[in-house]
């Protein structure tokens, strides 16, 4: 960390980014000062709405003008002020001196151009080189970012690559002209943990090799711990704390930073609770295959077959929380949806209190619905925007035949249980924040008094401090209502906090099951080991 003695690459002084009138606050970024030295990784951490992304866009000159613009302050870069220079000069700087990688490489890459063409464009726009030279440089770059078979990757289209490979291609493009500054806006948020670990390592390697200054925007303190030299914490547009990574992570000064860090779940499994041995729900040899393609009445393209669940066997005991963990595409969500009968499995048994739910038709299933309920991932998509909160919650019992008045009374009770004001009853979902909406979703699932609650990534769309509150609420409710819970998550930190037992899934197969503490202590399957190794910030908050 040679940050101190070298002159900073980028100096941000008293930066104000103004928001349009009528916004929640007048400035997205307010009076921010920051320096970035060559060869340093500065992590800007904050929750959604903290202004961290707009700050990075201001450096790139990519603010959605004229609504959002820099109203005050300077961004000094190589003797120029990026706030005042003309657009033509900014275009020269972008890509050659300062470049950026984005969260979602699929949308940042042009889907109708090959990777090679897109890298070539960068060279063509900024430098004079022969076609052959450009091609050689591009292949070299792809090799640098460790894309398998760089020559073949040149002629691949973005959709032909995996998420991690796409992000590698993006990094290759961003580093094509050897920029002095790389801005990375949540570059690993859309990726699986194991891929995330690889990409973080790659960014660090490339940064060291090219001596690039990196401005790394993230919400994840685990990632910060893995990659940052220095950390700046933002809250509501203001930079509340800066310091070296060790200082901020281990000895946070500002109360907000302390709160954020405390909300990061530790990677120590919860102490196992005493539990009954009798199972409430048993899933035996569940199998589900997805077929796509085929076209009109079977004519047309070739069919594609995906085994989302192969021979999955699980057991949920009374009063326990069973976590199903795995990366995207592992089939964990499909299993959850099969269990609540949103998706029809082809084979196997779903035994709930002795009844096999799998073969039941919709009408036969209806009386069993109240015994098994689901909490969804996206609090913005899981509530009907045109229905009042009260009606959303009360409709369940009304469908099950409860008199309207009784259902209403029960709904009001549950609003209180999940920590919402009773006045929420007559409001629409859009009037609530993400965390509050998730509470509404939980109330909807609980109002029927289920025995089993299936929660599909219930906190992954939430900020870390809200996440902690929701996890606490789920825990409290589970105790109070003697619920058994199936908890789907990709986040091993969360799993360690809530789950008594774990089932690890990969490619539709359960590779390992066992008590959480045991799996964390001595993982048997190599995939489980890889997952545990990839948890960001493992060394920092192991517990």
């Amino acid at each position: 960390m040679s940050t101190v003695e070298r002159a900073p690459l980028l100096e941000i002084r008293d930066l104000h980014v103004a928001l349009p009138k009528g916004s929640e606050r007048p400035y997205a970024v307010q009076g921010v000062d920051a320096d970035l030295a060559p060869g340093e990784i500065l992590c800007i951490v904050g929750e959604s709405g903290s202004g961290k992304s707009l700050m990075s866009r201001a450096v790139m000159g990519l603010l959605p003008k004229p609504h959002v613009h820099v109203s005050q302050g300077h961004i000094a870069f190589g003797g120029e002020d990026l706030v005042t220079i003309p657009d033509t000069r900014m275009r020269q700087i972008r890509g050659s001196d300062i470049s950026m990688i984005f969260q979602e490489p699929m949308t940042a890459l042009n889907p109708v151009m090959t990777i090679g063409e897109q890298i070539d464009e960068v060279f063509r726009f900024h430098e004079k080189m022969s076609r052959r030279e450009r091609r050689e440089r591009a292949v070299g770059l792809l090799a640098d970012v460790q894309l398998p078979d760089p020559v073949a990757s040149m002629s691949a289209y973005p959709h032909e690559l995996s998420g991690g490979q796409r992000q590698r291609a993006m990094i290759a493009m961003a580093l094509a002209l050897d920029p002095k500054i790389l801005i990375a806006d949540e570059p690993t948020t859309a990726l699986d943990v194991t891929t995330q670990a690889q990409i973080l390592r790659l960014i660090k390697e490339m940064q060291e090799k090219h001596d690039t200054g990196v401005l790394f925007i993230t919400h994840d303190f685990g990632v910060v711990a893995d990659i940052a030299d220095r950390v700046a914490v933002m809250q509501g547009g203001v930079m509340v704390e800066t310091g070296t990574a060790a200082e901020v992570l281990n000895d946070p000064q500002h109360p907000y930073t302390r709160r954020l860090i405390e909300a990061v779940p530790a990677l120590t499994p919860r102490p196992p609770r005493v539990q009954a041995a009798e199972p409430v729900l048993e899933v035996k040899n569940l199998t589900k295959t997805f077929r796509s393609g085929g076209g009109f009445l079977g004519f047309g393209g070739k069919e594609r077959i995906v085994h989302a669940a192969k021979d999955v066997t699980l057991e949920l005991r009374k009063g326990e929380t069973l976590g199903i963990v795995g990366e995207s595409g592992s089939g964990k969500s499909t299993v959850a949806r099969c269990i609540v009968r949103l998706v029809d499995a082809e084979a196997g048994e779903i035994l709930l209190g002795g009844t096999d739910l799998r073969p039941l038709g919709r009408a036969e299933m209806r009386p069993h619905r109240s015994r098994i309920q689901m909490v969804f991932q996206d609090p913005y998509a899981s509530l009907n925007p045109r229905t009042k909160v009260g009606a959303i919650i009360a409709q369940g019992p009304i469908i099950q035949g409860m008199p309207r008045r009784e259902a209403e009374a029960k709904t009001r009770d549950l609003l209180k249980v999940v920590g919402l004001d009773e006045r929420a009853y007559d409001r629409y979902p859009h009037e609530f924040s993400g965390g509050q909406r998730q509470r509404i979703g939980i109330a909807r699932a609980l109002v029927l008094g289920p025995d089993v609650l299936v929660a599909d990534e219930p906190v992954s769309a939430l900020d870390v401090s809200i996440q902690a509150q929701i996890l606490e609420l789920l825990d409290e409710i589970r105790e109070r209502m003697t619920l058994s819970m199936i908890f789907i998550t990709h986040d091993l930190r969360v799993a360690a906090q809530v789950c008594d037992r774990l089932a690890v899934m990969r490619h539709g197969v359960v590779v390992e099951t066992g008590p959480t503490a045991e799996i964390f202590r001595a993982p048997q399957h190599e995939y489980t080991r890889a997952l545990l190794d990839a948890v960001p910030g493992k060394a920092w908050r192991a517990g």
Partner: protein
Amino acid sequence: MIQFWRLFRRNRSAVLGLVILILIIGMAATAHLFFPEDPFRLAGRSMSPPGENGFLLGSDSLGRDVASGIAHGAKTSLLIGLMATLVAVGFGTMMGGLAGYYGGWIDDILMRVTEMFQTIPSFIFAILLVAIMKPSIESIVIAIAVVSWPAVARLVRGEFLSLRGREFVQACHTLGMSDARIILREILPNCLSPIIVIGSLMVATAILIESGLAFLGLGDPNIMSWGFQIGAGRTLLRSAWWVCTFPGIAILITVLAINLVGEGLNDALNPRLRERA
């Protein structure tokens, strides 16, 4: 509602369109007060220019009052426009909703049927239908609806396709809600905005088709309409320009007003536009 009006009001031309539309509706509603006589009646000297012989907008070759015809014709145009649109939107929503919600072979079949209708040029198809059924108000309404519903069906199908996979719909499934209730109470209210917009624009098209049919002599012979007036005056265009011109202007203004209102509705109901500005 108040908030909706505030959003609608932001689009000035839409408010202008609404004012004009209200005036036209007023004209249609009060036609029998200002022109109590039958518009087909021979009211005086034929081919009188506007302002002469007591004709505000002149008279045609048989001495019928053009102004009276426009006032009474407004009723026909609006009525047919509205009825045809209601039928088309109702049927189109049903087809599109079922196709989008159930998907699979139901979707395949319904959408192939829809495409079949879309391949036939709509105006020629409408002429054909009216010619087969004998010209009358009902047959015109049916003809216009038959050529207009596929657009609605496609739109509604798209909306249903994207909404049926949303988590709030899945939540309804886990509560054991019936399909009919999910379709009508959960999904449909969420795609009303685009349906209202396409419906409002469709009224304008329907009025144009009706005028076109009447112009070709396929209108209901017992009912005065703008298209009929233009058709009757087309041979006299050089000697009595007013017979064609004023009904033509009436059609133009009405269609324009409805389109402006439709645009305004689109701006006010489209959430992506709402966040701008």
